[in-house]
């Protein structure tokens, strides 16, 4: 059950805020929030855990306080993650923890995926740009983010929200989908969706479920196979 699971949210911005609200609505009781950034006034329309009084404060600390205020055991980690940190993050997790990757850093999404596979843990990974959102849940043995996206795209194909714009509602919808995927994983109801990329094309009102198969050439396969051969490695 989601109430029993340690939930770790990486990034408390446009995706992280609605994801945290979704986790709260889903019944989460324990969350860890990791972010190094501070609240800016330009964030407030879409980073809905914060208000004007929070400008200049650390997002992780404010978000954790907001969650504690509604009875959730929330802790903040004020730190800037780099890809090499992800193994340490996953090594410190409780066995049944779920990590929600809500940053806007492409390399962290791949690193989070790879660390989850290496450590036999569960994660959900999301992104939003313009009117589009992506979300995928990864569990031991399932297809993973790298089964879908083989490699980091060049910067020209991954413009940031600042460059290409993002609708606040797009990150909102995507963040809630990430929370729902985490709830489904926690409650054991994710079999039909795990390992599949949800593409939210909000401009056309279409939600697609794409792929969902382990790619034979995926570099995570070796790790995946060895993890599956270890009893109790997966949760």
């Amino acid at each position, binding site marked *: 059950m989601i109430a029993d699971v340690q939930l770790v949210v990486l*990034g408390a*911005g*446009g*995706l*992280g805020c609605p994801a945290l609200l979704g986790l709260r609505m889903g019944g989460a009781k324990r969350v860890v929030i990791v972010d190094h950034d501070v609240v800016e006034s330009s*964030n407030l329309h879409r980073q809905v855990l914060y208000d004007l009084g929070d400008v200049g404060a650390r997002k992780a600390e404010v978000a954790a306080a907001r969650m504690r205020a509604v009875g959730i055991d929330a802790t903040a980690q004020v730190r800037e993650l780099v890809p090499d940190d992800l193994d340490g993050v996953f090594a410190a997790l409780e066995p049944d923890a779920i990590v929600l990757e*809500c*940053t*806007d*850093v*492409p390399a962290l*999404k791949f690193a989070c995926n790879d660390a989850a596979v290496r450590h036999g843990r569960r994660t959900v990974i*999301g*992104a*939003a*740009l*313009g*009117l*589009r*959102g*992506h979300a995928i849940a990864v569990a031991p043995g399932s297809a993973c983010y790298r089964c*879908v*996206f*083989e*490699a*980091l*795209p*060049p910067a*020209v*194909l*991954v*413009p*940031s*929200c*600042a460059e*290409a714009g*993002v609708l606040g509602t797009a*990150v909102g919808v*995507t963040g809630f989908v990430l929370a729902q995927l985490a709830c489904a994983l926690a409650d054991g109801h994710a079999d039909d969706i795990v390992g599949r*990329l949800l*593409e939210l*094309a909000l*401009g*056309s009102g279409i939600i*697609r*479920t*794409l*792929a969902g*198969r382990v*790619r034979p050439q995926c570099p995570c396969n070796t790790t995946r196979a060895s993890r599956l051969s270890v009893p109790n490695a997966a949760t």
Partner: protein
Amino acid sequence: MATVRIPTPLRKFTQGKDEVSIVGTNVRELLANLEAAHPGIREKICDEGGAVRRFVNVFVADEDIRFLDNLDTAVKDADEVSIVPAIAGGR
């Protein structure tokens, strides 16, 4: 004609359109016709050898062409073809 869904970063080649209608009996032919109609777009999707770049996915009717016949995957008139690069935003 198949409907080709264009991701945000490539819409500068399609005059901002998020979908275009393109003729093609398979993905290879469809991409060639897409390039003819919207010059410059194919090199963003395919490498110099013509293969789909590693950071781009092409789906025909929601199926990844890597699990079908890749560039030789058949395309029917009513099909939707989605070009899906990874996106990274979320702030």
